[in-house]
């Protein structure tokens, strides 16, 4: 399942230092995405034939460039130009672009590259060019097993994104989520995993029992989730590579709302007993369980700060569901949400400066962000029902799920994944083969 061990990542060109004339500002909503030309990666006839045999793709060079193009477009920051307008052939462009030709079609940046079949492996090199300055901005090469060709496309996108925005990318990542099917009153739910762009979808459970809220550990090899196996709702741990599952802890009642600590050593979750839900942690090494909150209210949806020093959670101790922050030992509990409405599902940004949340106000659901002291609340999107935001590893994009209202006959229900930029722009449907909910975004796999 995980290609990490097989993935050989080698850097053969040292990027030439140039003053970057192109800069993409990602701090505001980007209404003028950067025009970029993604030339198909050139490929020799022999390599083409070999890859066709292995991968059943006619031209793997242009397939990889399509992955890059789609990623760039989805980011909302780039406008990949139509290939029909390209004047220079891919192989020659990779040697030395005729900048005036690319300038003519208004490309400001250009990606070129080359694919080869060497020792049963896929070797890809690519270059990023600044068209206006007429200079190479970066050049890299990778060697990997042919089956990893899509990941190569994602890694190229990450490198380009990083070079042009100054921020780490989020394309070589995966999403774990709950795949849903069947009528609303008897939904069948399975754990599913896919690449960030929706490809390589795979179901991890069969749907025999209800499963909810999967979340990755920091290195994205393990998942913690809630399963109703034998009608006992408990937090489980799943190793994605081996498929082994185990119950987390030995609790005499429902455990739910699990997440990993940022070092991956603990699971934080709620345990419900006698009508009261409190927050607990369990150390995965020594199995020691600690009670973190102790209050007769509902305390749930805990999420650590990236440094592990704080925990945000939601509680109805004030009478209604609101967001609180406390130290990771449970001390110094402070309410941070004071706007109108109910607040839930706080999730700490990987950058540490913001908390994303779900808000219910006057019958509408919002996904929003606030600073960790509760100030600067900003609502990004409003809908009939949506919740459960999860951050991209660079903290720039949120993925969440949205449900539609049913009609008078109770029909027309759907649940889908959506993403939106932190800026509130670039709201997009994330395609999944079935209905979907409870998304969790992985870390960067190639790190």
């Amino acid at each position, binding site marked *: 399942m995980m290609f990490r061990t097989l993935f050989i990542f080698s850097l053969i060109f040292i990027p030439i230092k140039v003053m970057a004339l192109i800069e993409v500002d990602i701090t505001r909503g980007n209404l003028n995405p950067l025009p970029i030309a993604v030339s198909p990666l050139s490929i020799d006839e022999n390599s083409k034939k070999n890859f066709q045999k292995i991968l059943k793709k006619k031209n793997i060079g242009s397939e990889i460039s399509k992955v890059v193009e789609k990623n760039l477009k989805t980011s909302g920051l780039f406008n990949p130009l139509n290939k029909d307008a390209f004047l220079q052939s891919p192989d020659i462009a990779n040697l030395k672009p005729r900048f005036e030709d690319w300038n003519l079609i208004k490309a400001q940046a250009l990606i070129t590259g080359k694919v080869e079949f060497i020792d049963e492996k896929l070797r890809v090199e690519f270059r990023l060019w600044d068209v206006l300055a007429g200079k190479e901005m970066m050049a890299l090469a990778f060697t990997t097993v042919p089956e990893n060709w899509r990941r190569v496309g994602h890694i190229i996108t990450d490198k380009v994104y990083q070079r042009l925005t100054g921020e780490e990318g989020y394309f070589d990542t995966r999403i774990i989520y709950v795949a849903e099917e069947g009528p609303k009153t008897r939904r069948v739910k399975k754990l599913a995993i896919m690449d960030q762009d929706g490809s390589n979808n795979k179901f991890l459970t069969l749907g025999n029992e209800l499963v909810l809220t999967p979340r990755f550990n920091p290195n994205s090899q393990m998942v913690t989730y809630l399963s109703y196996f034998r009608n006992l709702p408990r937090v489980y741990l799943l190793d994605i590579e081996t498929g082994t599952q185990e119950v987390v802890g030995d609790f005499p009642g429902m455990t*739910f709302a699990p997440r990993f600590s940022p070092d991956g050593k603990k699971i934080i979750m*709620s345990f*419900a007993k006698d*009508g009261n839900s409190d927050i607990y942690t369990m150390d995965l090494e020594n199995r020691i369980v600690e009670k973190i909150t102790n209050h007769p209210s*509902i305390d749930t*949806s805990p999420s650590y700060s990236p440094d592990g020093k704080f925990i945000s959670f939601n509680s109805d101790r004030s009478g209604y569901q609101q967001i609180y922050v406390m130290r990771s030992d449970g001390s110094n509990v402070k309410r941070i949400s004071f706007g109108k409405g109910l607040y839930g599902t706080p999730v700490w940004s990987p950058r540490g400066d913001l908390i994303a949340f779900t808000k219910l106000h006057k019958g509408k659901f919002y996904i929003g962000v606030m600073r960790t002291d509760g100030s600067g609340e900003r609502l990004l999107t409003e809908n009939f029902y949506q919740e*459960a935001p999860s951050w991209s590893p660079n903290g720039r994009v949120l993925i969440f799920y949205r449900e539609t209202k049913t009609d008078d006959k109770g029909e027309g229900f759907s649940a889908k994944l959506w993403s939106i930029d932190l800026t509130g722009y670039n709201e997009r449907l994330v395609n999944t083969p079935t209905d979907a909910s409870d998304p969790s975004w992985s870390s960067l796999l190639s790190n």
Partner: protein
Amino acid sequence: MKNLSIRNIDQGAIMKLNKIFKNAFLVTVACLFLSACATSKKSTGQMQGDVYTGKDTVEYLASGVPDRVFFATNESVLTTASRETLRKQAAWLRKNSKITIVLEGHADERGTREYNLALGERRANAAKDYLMTYGISSDRISVLSYGKERPVDSGSNPLSWSKNRRSVTVKAN
């Protein structure tokens, strides 16, 4: 009369009326009058406040013993009608002392998934606590929250949601 919940009637109004009608007979008349008002004003015949009072989804554990109780939005307080239903269940359980039950707690779809899991647990435990005060041992009762995962009514409207905010008593053996 017996089924009338006074929760939704203005308590102040009742107090005033109590002062005016010192005579017990007159108070009874006043209650009847208020009951008529409450029905025409607050209830569609299926809801009182936002608590479901209809019978559409109700099943029976035995003749005259409804299997479920309903809750107001975000609440786990038992209404007068719920307590009456649970007393019937307790009487039935005392008569059938070998039966064990699962109390399944549910929430409507208008809340976040994790909070609703906790809310369903809280609702089922409210029912459990009440059954215990009527002599049913906790050994015979287990609690299972489904949160918003198993609605009985798939509609997206207040009446559907009221049917889904429930604790259902299910025979376990």
